[in-house]
């Protein structure tokens, strides 16, 4: 639900190259190009879903948006503030407006701290609350918001289930009343029924606190459920950006990689199961020496000469729908109909009342 029509975050040509040790004498200009020129905007109040397979740079991108790591090049404007020009002190002040939830709550919660202490830390760091009582009340209130309660205050993370631990991580991320929360695969380690509880909770909290989410996932089913707009990443680049409800969920995708990803959503209605499945060949190449031209070309069944030499820019092909492909019309003809069929089968299944 987009409440205010403006941009909270503007990303301009963001790059992050990690040097790697090569040869006997250390680094020699060899880099992993984790994020290699990404530009996009995240609107206030929306959930921007970012998807891609391991190594595509989605987690590095998220860390850059919170300035947990420094960029190689590019700019991030957070509510108009140039994030990378801030001093340490100014950054700390701004961090109050940001939160992050990681995939594995077990490793992101300090095992030697009680839930009370875990939640008290951000309040202390940002100087929120003037007395012990006030802070305690804030902690109890946030615990209740995430479906826990006072009885959990003196527990340690290991005494909680995976789902409860993730609720604590969420509470920690939102206790400072931030505008923006990065959710980095928050449900990937959870069972289906627990995942459903956490997704419901995230939607509820977003509405209540008017949060803006960057939701990172490799799970396409979760992506199409939770996001308002989505970006698909491949080898450090964004290849497609679109609206979820009237484009992605209807199967209207125009980059061949997006189409292959969406076709990997299983045909839960097995009337749709085909033995001659459409599968993308090959594996993701290394981001140390990414392919020239379009990075997807070695795996693309439709690649032409132009794709090997010229990198396709991310262009708006419809209002708000961006694609980085020289020949989106080929995907539209050869793959889009299958994606539409797959998404329609999901809607049919839901209507069928199962």
């Amino acid at each position: 639900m987009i409440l205010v029509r403006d941009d909270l975050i503007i990303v301009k040509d963001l790059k992050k190259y990690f040097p790697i040790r090569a040869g006997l004498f250390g680094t020699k200009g060899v880099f992993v190009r984790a994020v290699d020129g990404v530009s996009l905007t995240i609107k206030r109040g929306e959930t921007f879903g970012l998807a891609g397979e391991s190594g595509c740079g989605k987690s590095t991108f998220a860390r850059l948006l919170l300035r947990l790591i420094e960029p190689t090049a590019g700019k991030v404007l957070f509510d108009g503030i140039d994030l990378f020009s801030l001093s340490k002190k100014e950054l700390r002040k701004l961090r109050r407006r940001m939160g992050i939830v990681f995939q594995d709550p077990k490793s992101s919660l300090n095992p030697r701290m009680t839930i009370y202490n875990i939640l008290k830390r951000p309040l202390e760091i940002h100087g929120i609350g003037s007395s012990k009582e006030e802070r305690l009340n804030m902690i109890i209130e946030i615990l209740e918001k995430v479906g826990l309660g006072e009885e959990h205050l003196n527990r340690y993370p290991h005494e909680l289930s995976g789902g409860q631990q993730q609720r604590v991580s969420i509470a920690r991320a939102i206790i400072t009343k931030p505008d923006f929360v990065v959710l980095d695969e928050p449900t990937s380690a959870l069972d289906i029924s627990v995942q459903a509880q956490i997704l419901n909770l995230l939607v509820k909290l977003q509405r209540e606190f008017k949060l803006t989410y960057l939701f990172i996932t490799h799970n396409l089913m979760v992506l199409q459920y939770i996001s308002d707009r989505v970006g698909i990443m491949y080898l450090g680049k964004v290849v497609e950006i679109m609206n979820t409800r009237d484009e992605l969920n209807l199967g209207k995708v125009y980059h061949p990689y997006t189409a292959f990803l969406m076709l990997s959503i299983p045909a839960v209605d097995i009337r749709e199961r085909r033995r001659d499945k459409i599968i993308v060949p090959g594996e993701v190449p290394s981001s140390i020496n990414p392919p020239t031209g379009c990075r997807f070309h070695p795996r693309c069944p439709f690649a032409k000469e132009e794709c090997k030499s010229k990198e396709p820019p991310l262009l708006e092909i419809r209002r708000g729908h961006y694609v980085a492909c020289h020949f989106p019309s080929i995907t539209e003809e050869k793959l889009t109909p299958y994606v539409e069929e797959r998404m329609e089968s999901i809607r049919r299944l839901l209507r069928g009342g199962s």
Partner: protein
Amino acid sequence: MNNEILLKIEDLYVNFRTDEGIAKVIDGISLSIRYGEVLALMGETGCGKSTVAKSILRLLPKNAEVRGKILFKGTNLLDLPESELRKIRGKEIGMIFQEPLTALNPVFTIGNQMSEMFKIHKLRIKRTIQEEVIELLKNVRIPDPQRRYYSYPFELSGGMRQRVMIAMMLAGRPSLLIADEPTSALDVTIQAQILKLLMDLRNKYNMSILIITHDPGVVAEMADRVAIMYAGQIAEVGPVRDIFLNPQHPYTRGLLRALPLGHKEERELENIPGRVPNLINPPPGCRFHPRCPYAMERCRKVKPKPVVISDEHYVFCHLLGGE
């Protein structure tokens, strides 16, 4: 696929002795797999699905007590002396795991490890062992198999390692392949490739596959029949289409409605309230009853017997009648 039974599990109970007490992990389950059939065991963490797989090959740790029968081609594997079982394990019944890196030995080359299969099981070969190995690697579509023969496991990607594991299992021409979460550690496009490979191989060799997974997607893509497990009991078993389109057990229904299909603006996801029970003191009767919105007095006392819904679709639930 013919209708003959390859593997039959009868009234299997598995208990684990732990410091806190005896965990009753598998509570009397019965299942069968036909020749050439793909059966999926699906459930959430701790439901016992991997324990079932491991009891078939008797790979459970020493603190496990196993009761019941596991008949493979008519022979009870649980009665077999270890020396006899070794001839079946890895030859007639193959197994692949979630993380192939832990199943492969890091200090030997792929060729070396795969050659061992031929030596240990004294397999008949038509050419040199090396040629046989390369042929197997080709079979699982590993590019450049001649070179991969000399690779070490760490030099391969996760998808390639899983292909090597599958190739290794194919050496013995198994009639049953047990695949325990074979694609859970892989990216979606690679997962699709591996599932397709498994299906092609089952068609080529008419092999039966028992696939253990938490992912309904894998079930939908692969399986002929699926058994839904909850806390060591089977909730529902039947053809995949019947289970997915016409689920009857409250747990199966809850699980499918919890899948994030559709969009958040259109529907809220279903919650299954409560948590998986502790199996040292499991709930009596139907183990799902403390979380079941329809639980009756009988559910708390009597373990449900299978109720026939249609042809091969059985539900273990008192709501649906039975005696």
